[in-house]
């Protein structure tokens, strides 16, 4: 039974979604008042200079020809030239991909590291110390805006304790881990709230399942029953929640990126929208869409791998 038989269909869906997004972004951007010439000329804006810039950037052509040109170039992998950076949009985006992707994966790992043990133990010993403390802490961390938490971490860990750098991306893998620890932790805490809660509920349900008694009946040690039966099926429920929330995060790291001065995609996206740098915004939007859809696909695959019963429903 090929569990991923529906993969080609999912890829078709991906293409449709990407096409839709490129269409919506293209026209949405042009509906926003203020055009790129305004951004470039700023306070010394004159109409003649604006017209010269529009011609140079090809914005004076009818909108449908612009869209046609854009899609044709996109088909050949060329996202156009950034208005602001005076470089191809692809190079600009690639320069900013590393911090955001690294931050996302790092935050995802930290969130898992934090929430899996706490969620599982809270489920095993309901009402225990871990359960109560976890519940209070994560309610607080959820209700706090991420950028506020970020500033507190900087004040505590960078200014007073000098444990971590205030900003920047660092160099080399270890450098990244060290520099991005605080931003990743900031994101991970908010993210963990949901994970802890769903893992706790799943563990409680799993403990009451009859196959746990069957497993105990075999005489295998309780620790192994917990690990290979209870945790295995409890984690399953968390995979879907993990995927959905990680995807949600993709567009949302800008606030933390700004507080920690990380030159990531989020900051670039907001700046580019402010600058009306259409090619870069369109490029990032597509990149985000691809990442989000891949995360969803990956989540479904992991879920299908872990839970054979869900395998059949992948197709829809």
């Amino acid at each position: 039974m090929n569990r991923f038989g529906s993969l080609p269909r999912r890829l078709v869906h991906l293409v449709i979604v990407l096409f839709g997004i490129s269409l919506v972004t293209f026209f949405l951007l042009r509906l926003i008042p203020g055009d790129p010439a305004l951004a470039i000329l700023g306070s010394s804006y004159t109409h003649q200079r604006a017209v010269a810039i529009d011609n140079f950037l090809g914005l004076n052509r009818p909108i449908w020809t612009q869209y046609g040109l854009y899609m044709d170039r996109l088909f050949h992998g060329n996202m156009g030239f950034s208005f602001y950076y005076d470089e191809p949009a692809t190079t600009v985006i690639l320069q900013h991909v590393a911090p955001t992707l690294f931050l996302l994966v790092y935050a995802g790992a930290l969130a898992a590291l934090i929430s899996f043990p706490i969620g599982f133990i809270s489920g095993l010993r309901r009402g225990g110390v871990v359960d109560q403390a976890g519940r209070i802490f994560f309610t607080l961390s959820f209700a706090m805006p991420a950028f506020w938490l970020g500033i507190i971490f900087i004040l505590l860990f960078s200014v007073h304790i000098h444990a971590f750098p205030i900003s920047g991306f660092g160099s080399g893998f270890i450098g990244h881990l060290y520099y991005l620890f605080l931003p990743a932790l900031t994101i991970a805490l908010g993210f963990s709230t949901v994970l802890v809660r769903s893992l706790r509920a799943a563990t409680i349900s799993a403990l009451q399942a009859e196959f746990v008694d069957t497993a105990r009946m075999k005489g295998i040690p309780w620790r192994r029953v917990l690990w290979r039966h209870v945790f295995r099926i409890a984690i399953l429920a968390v995979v879907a929640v993990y995927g959905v929330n990680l995807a949600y995060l993709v567009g949302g790291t800008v606030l933390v990126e700004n507080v920690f001065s990380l030159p990531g995609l989020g900051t670039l996206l907001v700046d580019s929208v402010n600058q009306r740098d259409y090619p870069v915004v369109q490029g990032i939007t597509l990149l985000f869409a691809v990442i989000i859809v891949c995360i969803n696909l990956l989540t479904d695959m992991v879920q299908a791998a872990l839970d054979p019963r869900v395998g059949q429903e992948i197709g829809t």
Partner: protein
Amino acid sequence: MSTAWAASPSELLMRAASKAAGRRRSVTRRRLTLIVGLVLLGIAILAVFLAPVLVSQSPTTIDPLHPLAPPLTPDHLLGTDQYGRDILARILYGGRIDLAIAFGATAVTLVGGTFYGLIAGYIGGRTDSVMMRVVDLVFAFPFLVLVIAIIAMLGPSIFNMFVAIWITSWVAYARIMRAQTVVAKKQQYVLAARALGYGRLRVMFRHILPNTASAVIIFSMVDAVGNIILAASLGFLGLGAQPPAPEWGTMIADGQNYILSSWWLVAMPGLAVLYIGISFALIGDGLADLLRAGEQ
């Protein structure tokens, strides 16, 4: 950013697998969290509507003589902001907007998203696939570009902030509801209802919805808090409530500039958000236990 909490098909199947008796915690214990949450929220709603009684200052009159007064200065319990406006007054009056956001924005996305997901899940086949592609599209769309575009076109105002939230947040509900409906569709009680010849609408709304609404309702509690924080993010991007209207999110956003010199500008509205966040979380937990117990 608000987070989505989707119950996946596997969790539902597993829950059906565990046929053990109800949990040991007595029912009163469960209801306690719900009651405490509701009481806290009630106090907040009362305080917000009795604002004119509770505090004499108006939230918008500026007093250039003593801006940034620290908390506990005479007749400014929580201090004043950078324009000398009383922070306590702004929090109470601002609460009206933020509670409206928490309820107003969430209610619409809850109803809209749930119906969308219910229809998509129940009809299935090609329509479901198309509807879910629309959901994927909105979901995969960077939320920031959408919000900035919407508010830039419609102009920044509180109502337009609602519109921005409506357009972007219904997707999570649609996704959760669809997943639930797809599973519920195969349950006996639905097959039985259809066997009795009930109309499609009746099956959907009288049978599937009541049994699957719990996950969506629980999520709406989480989403409500998320929407308030969303207001803070919009304020942070400068797209939130217009000056001089008081709104917690924008107060936090503006206050951040003064975080090192006068921390209370950011702390006070932040605590207000925290307070509402906690009350919603408690309600969410209480509801989750009650509804889940009912479902088993």
